[in-house]
Structure formats: structure tokens, C-alpha cells
């Protein structure tokens, strides 16, 4: 009986380390430039930072309204996460039920995913205007309150819960909402984590919609602040990159904290037939 020969572990690990290093190189370069402020086009490029310091971060904090931008981003992101959890849970649970034209509803959702956001900007703007929430946190968060991908993540997660468990809960007298809150959601932690992370990343990085819907600098979020910073301070490479790092750090931290749940949430249901 012949055995399949696998390459040695150290070789696989060495390959992974090299690939990781290549993928992390741009992040390292951003971090290095934020600590030195050196010209990114300098030749030959220096791999190690020369005289690193943190004063570029201090400049960012004081030269623009950074705390205000952070506050706006945090409020909008918190709204988007809460909205996603509420609406996607409800929609995902509804899609696990049998109802007339369910197939058409699923098809409608899937076909809506094909339409790029840029194509729906004008109707979205008009709706936001009719609701009277232009230039408000709610207005910025509105299109991000529910996303179709996350609805399907919840649907896949809910469908993995045994039917008998739900039937037992119903016999015990639990209402539909309590079944969702007490049974479905505790068993769908990876889906919740995925929802939180995806809605966080999308709302934290959103640029086009906040650009359209905000009218004053007081309502600007971090990506808008970054664009404004670029237009005002062209020559301060170090401060610009420090700003980029300050925008990136919360997202990366949350991803690193929840990466296990995130990967599980995205892959649970991926192998279902």
C-alpha cells in the first residue's frame, strides 16, 4: 500500500511565512512611513525606519478635527451594526420559513446583489431626502442598516439549527421573537460575529455615500476626513500615513479579536448541498 508523501512541515510553514510577509509588506510600509515621514519614492528604499517618532500622530490629532471624525464614524458604525443585527436576523429567520413566493423573494434578493451601489445612489439620496435625514448620522447609516449578504449568512446559520429544537420551543409556548432571541441567536454566534465585522468594515470605510449625504464638516466621517486631509496637506507624508494608520487600527483590532468567529461565520453553510 503506497502512502501519499507530503512535503515536510517546515517547508509549508516557510512558504506561509513568505506569503504572509509579502501580504503584510504594504501595511508595514504605511506604518514605517507614518513613523518617519520619509519620501515614499526615495531610492533605494530603506526597509528599516530611520529615527522613528510618533509626532506625526500628534499632528493629525491637532491639525484636523480628528476626534470629531472618530465620533461620527463610531456613531454611524454603531447604528449600522445594530441595524444589521436587527433587520438581518428578522429577514434571515423569515427566509427559513415556508411562505408563498419565497423562491421569488430569494431570487429578488440575489438579483439585487448584482446591482452596484453606484446605480442606486440617486433613488437612495431621494429617499433619504424625503425622510429628512440628510446630513445626519442616521442618513449616513441608512443604506448600511441591512445588507443582503448578511441576511443570507443568518439564513444559512438558522437553517443549521435542528428543526426539532424549534418545534420543542414552540410546544413550550415561545413566541417567534423569543425563539429567535433564546434559541436561534445563541446558536448563531459565528453569524453574529460575521455580521458585526462586515457591517463594521463597510460602514467604517464607506466613502461615496457619506460624501454625498453630508454637507458640513461636523458630520464628516474618517474616510471623508482623510480625503480632506489629502487636499489640505499635500506635503506632510508622515502625518497622512499616520492618519491612515489611525483609521485602520480599530478595524484591524476588531478583526483580530473576532477572526475565529468571522472565518467560521463565513464558512458555516458554505459546504451545505
Amino acid at each position, binding site marked *: 500500500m503506497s502512502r501519499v508523501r507530503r512535503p515536510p512541515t517546515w517547508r509549508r510553514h516557510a512558504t506561509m511565512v513568505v506569503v504572509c510577509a509579502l501580504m503584510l509588506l504594504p501595511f508595514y510600509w504605511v506604518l514605517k512611513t507614518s513613523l518617519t515621514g520619509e519620501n515614499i519614492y526615495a531610492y533605494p528604499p530603506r526597509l528599516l525606519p530611520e529615527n522613528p*517618532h510618533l*509626532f506625526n500622530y*500628534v*499632528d493629525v490629532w*491637532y*491639525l484636523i478635527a480628528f476626534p470629531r471624525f472618530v465620533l461620527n464614524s463610531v456613531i454611524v458604525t454603531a447604528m449600522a451594526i445594530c441595524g444589521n443585527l436587527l433587520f438581518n436576523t428578522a429577514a434571515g429567520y423569515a427566509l427559513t420559513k415556508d411562505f408563498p413566493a419565497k423562491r421569488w423573494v430569494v431570487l429578488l434578493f440575489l438579483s439585487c446583489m448584482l446591482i452596484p451601489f453606484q446605480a442606486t445612489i440617486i433613488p437612495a439620496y431621494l429617499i433619504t431626502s424625503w425622510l429628512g435625514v440628510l446630513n445626519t448620522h442616521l442618513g449616513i447609516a441608512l443604506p448600511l442598516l441591512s445588507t443582503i449578504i448578511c441576511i443570507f449568512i443568518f439564513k444559512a446559520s438558522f437553517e443549521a439549527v435542528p428543526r426539532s429544537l424549534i418545534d420543542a420551543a414552540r410546544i413550550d409556548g415561545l413566541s417567534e421573537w423569543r425563539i429567535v432571541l433564546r434559541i436561534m441567536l445563541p446558536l448563531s454566534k459565528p453569524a453574529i460575529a460575521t455580521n458585526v465585522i462586515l457591517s463594521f468594515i463597510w460602514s467604517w470605510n464607506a466613502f461615496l455615500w457619506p460624501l454625498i449625504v453630508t454637507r458640513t464638516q461636523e458630520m464628516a466621517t474618517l474616510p471623508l476626513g482623510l480625503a480632506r486631509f489629502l487636499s*489640505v*496637506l499635500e506635503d506632510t507624508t508622515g502625518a497622512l500615513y499616520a492618519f491612515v494608520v489611525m483609521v485602520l487600527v480599530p478595524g484591524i*483590532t476588531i478583526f483580530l*479579536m*473576532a477572526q475565529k468567529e468571522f472565518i467560521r461565520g463565513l464558512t458555516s453553510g458554505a459546504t451545505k448541498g
Partner: protein
Amino acid sequence: MNWRAVLTHRFVYVPLAAAVLVGAWNLHVAANADGVIEGVVRDGAGRPVADADVIFFERNFVNYQEKFRARTDAAGAYRFENMQVHVGQLEARTPGGARSQRLQLRLWFRAQHTRADPLVVGAS
């Protein structure tokens, strides 16, 4: 509730650690933000220079502009108060026309209590 398990969960201790760091930093800022920038002016031989003007140049978006002036006492010491800045340059000028090199100041926070390096006038 198992508090130990709650506190050692990464979703708790990471934000908690961040909050503690931010709180400690703000306490440090509050304790040291009196807006004083002080220092001494010396000549090339290391003797204090009296009656020299020390000029603080504040950075705007493009360059540095003169913003404040102080005069040194008999010991060559100068002192700026209520300085709400975090970056700037200092230069000393004597009545005789000698100047020091501009000293770059970069502070960790606005109005930080700062003791600047000596400004040396007339040094070759």
C-alpha cells in the same frame, strides 16, 4: 456570573486595556498641560545672555510665522505662558543682532509643560 472568565475574554480585556491607557494618558495630559515653555539663552562660551528676545514661531499649514516673544532675564532664562501649541520653533536674538539657530519644538500634546534645550547665540 464567572467574572474571571468575563474579564479574561478578549472582547472585554482589549477594550478595557484601551480604556485604561486612554484614561491614564488623559490624566497625564491634565497634570502637565499648563502651557509653559521655558529655557535659557547662552552665548558660544556657555554664559547666560540677558535681554535677548526669544521668538516663538508657530506652524501654520505651510510655514512658520512669528507668534510670541519673550525676553531673557539676568540668568538668561525666558518663559512663555498660556501656549496652546504642540509644534513650533524657537529663536533667540540679542540686542547686538546675534541670532541662535532655530530650535524645533515638537510636543506630545497641546500646552505641554516644556523645558527647551538651551538656545546658543553667536555660535559658529
